[in-house]
């Protein structure tokens, strides 16, 4: 079943995954059929594939603001996060540090290494003063090998103060590798501005209109990080495995398109997002915008709704053909209480009714109108039925 089979569907879950851009699908297609050679081969057919990924690498480097040799193609954000943190720890030992609101792809690595998790402020962004304290702690001083701080939070959309983070890390732990998970930043922030602050940067292609199973990690030349995946050494020994040529082409195409349309998209999507939130808040009491608008990216509308449960809101939105999400889902598909909202200290009265609606390159004004009406109706139904006495329909 595709979206074409569900014509009335409103898609507000771009932070989970985005529709592939046409350019991305087109770039991938030839390598899914005719051009199947392995780019590491030595014949002319292989050289065609090699040329394709070399060009793609140049384009990706341009959009990130790094050298082509610093681009590593991976299987996605989770691999980039794991490879950087475990790779740094394996090479240098020491202490790994991250924020409490990181994606689990970072948080679970740091916890696995018994590292340090730094508190966040009420927006979900790392508390820089607390970070400084951790770095200066005599137990950690001189021993911190890697610091990982996300550029944009995936649940609530808050923007991290990476400039201050970099300053504090360089001043207190000059030998530490600074990594940023920029998975949720790609659509809304110029990666060149982020990459110049850090040593390693990770993005995931399906979050910006590319294919699933593809990611890019920018790793500064000369950094010492042990590879997570060893074998044929295809990505300059920093990552092995036969190149996913079609995936790489599609990733580069999606990133080019994202980079060239970003400025206009920020304006367009901010307007839509604000209209959505304004419509909901003006109709419903006891709804809070989890993070102030100027502290988060345009694509995320995160609300906490008192008197409702996320699973119930999502069910009613789903019935109305609106796709949204709450916190992260576990392997069973159940909603887990959000570690991000807990770390932010959101009022418990609101925390169980969290809702993330995330917008992107295909979002239209019509979708926003339908989503706001459906959400208002859903919340009204849930609040009304919750207070109603328990009665049964006669069978």
């Amino acid at each position, binding site marked *: 079943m595709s979206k074409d089979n569900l014509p009335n569907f409103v898609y507000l879950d771009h932070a989970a995954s985005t529709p592939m851009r046409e350019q991305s699908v087109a770039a991938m297609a030839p390598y899914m059929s005719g051009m199947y050679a392995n780019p590491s081969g030595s014949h002319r057919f292989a050289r065609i594939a090699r040329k394709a990924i070399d060009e793609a690498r140049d384009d990706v480097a341009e959009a990130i603001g790094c050298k082509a040799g610093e681009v590593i193609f991976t299987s996605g954000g989770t691999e980039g996060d794991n490879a950087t943190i475990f790779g740094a720890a394996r090479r240098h030992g020491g202490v790994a540090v991250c924020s409490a609101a990181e994606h689990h792809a970072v948080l679970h690595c740091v916890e696995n290494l018994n590292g340090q998790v730094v508190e966040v402020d009420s927006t979900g962004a790392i508390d820089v003063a607390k970070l400084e304290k951790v770095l200066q702690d005599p137990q950690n001083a001189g021993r911190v090998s890697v610091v990982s701080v996300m550029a944009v939070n995936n649940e609530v959309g808050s923007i991290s103060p990476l400039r201050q983070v970099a300053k504090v890390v360089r001043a207190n732990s000059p030998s530490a590798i600074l990594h940023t998970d920029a998975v949720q930043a790609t659509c809304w922030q110029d990666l060149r501005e982020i990459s110049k602050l850090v040593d390693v940067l990770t993005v995931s292609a399906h979050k910006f209109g590319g294919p699933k199973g593809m990611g890019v990690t920018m790793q500064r030349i000369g950094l010492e990080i042990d590879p997570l995946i060893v074998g044929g050494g295809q990505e300059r020994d920093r990552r092995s495995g036969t190149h996913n040529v079609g995936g790489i082409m599609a990733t580069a195409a999606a990133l080019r398109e994202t980079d060239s349309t970003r400025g206009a998209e920020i304006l367009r999507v901010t307007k839509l997002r604000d209209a959505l939130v304004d419509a909901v808040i003006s109709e419903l009491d006891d709804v809070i915008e989890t993070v102030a608008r100027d502290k988060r990216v345009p694509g995320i509308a995160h609300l906490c709704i008192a008197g409702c449960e996320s699973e119930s809101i999502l069910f009613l939105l789903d019935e109305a053909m609106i796709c949204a999400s709450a916190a992260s889902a576990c392997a*069973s598909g159940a909603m887990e209480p959000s570690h991000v909202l807990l770390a932010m200290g959101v009022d418990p009265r609101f925390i169980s009714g969290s809702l993330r609606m995330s917008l992107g390159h295909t979002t239209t004004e019509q979708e926003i109108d339908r989503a706001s009406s459906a959400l208002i109706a859903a919340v009204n*139904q*849930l609040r009304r*039925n919750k207070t109603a006495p328990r009665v049964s*329909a006669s069978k």
Partner: protein
Amino acid sequence: MKVLVAMSGGVDSSVAAAELIDQGHQVVGVTMRLWGGESDTGCCSVSDVDDARRVAQQLGIDHLVFNFSEDFNKHVVAPYVQAHVDGITPNPCIECNRHLKFDRLSERARILGFDAVATGHHAQITRDAANVFHLTRGHDGLKDQSYVVYMLDQTELAYTMFPVGHLTKAQVRDRAVELGLRTATKPDSQDVCFISRTGGRETFLGHRIEFRKATVVTSDGVLAGAVDALELVTIGQRKGLGLPGGGPKQFVVDVDTPNARVVIGSEDQLLRSGLAVNNVMWADQAPAIGSTVLVQCSAHGAALPALVQSLSPLVLEFEVAQRRIAPGQSVVCYDVTNSFVIGGGIADASNPTNT
């Protein structure tokens, strides 16, 4: 009707969903995520959610997962642990039915606009001429589960459906095979879902409470043995009491928690003429004082005739004296024809003689 069917990933609830679809209902499947820890007992684990989802896909219905793990911990797991501390023998599956399936889930179903909640229990809901709902035993006598859902009152009975209650287990399996469902040959779930088969109750409780050593004494107070964990001893138990072999059979006849003493005695000393029952729920009207009911005290135990001596508290007097029912066990009353549940409650803990 719009029906929410609770799908555990087992064959009964899989076929329950299929039956509802056949009856023309608008069906949505849901699996409750209850226990966050490990499970190897064939219930609640991620692979069971996978089975439920796959069956729903095969049947062409939507499938949801609701995370009720916090409620499960509060209403089932924590009380289970505390009961052991208090010397009570709890039935967590019944508490899960009471608090999760027929409270939390049915409440959510109502809020979301469903007309009924269905489960795969082997029980039936019938309605008499006076429009009273009866929780009737399942058609398959060997698989009847009316005992574990005895807490349903008229409001819940009106909102609940048991689509496989009229089938035998063999018919349920045949139906699943016919539909090509992957759960067709899955073994029935056993034991308590949050207690692993490998670790058992002892490991589970050992991680949560400190076991108390206790002495084992005869009813005359003569020291006879010792146990390492008073909390694991149950009324009627015969093994694991550190008693020398030979001699007449000895049973636990009382667990004296305050004094950390286990009292043993002969089978005769275990017999009681009746028992008191707490937290009583009636499906409809309470029975008349002096009337006879059939009393069942375990999931597959016999239902034995008893006289209703009083209603508050509920005191039942057996026709023939029975082995003492461990406090904490559910006591369910059926009508004299042994066909439907009248009501039930929890065997009293405060009264060591039970009557």
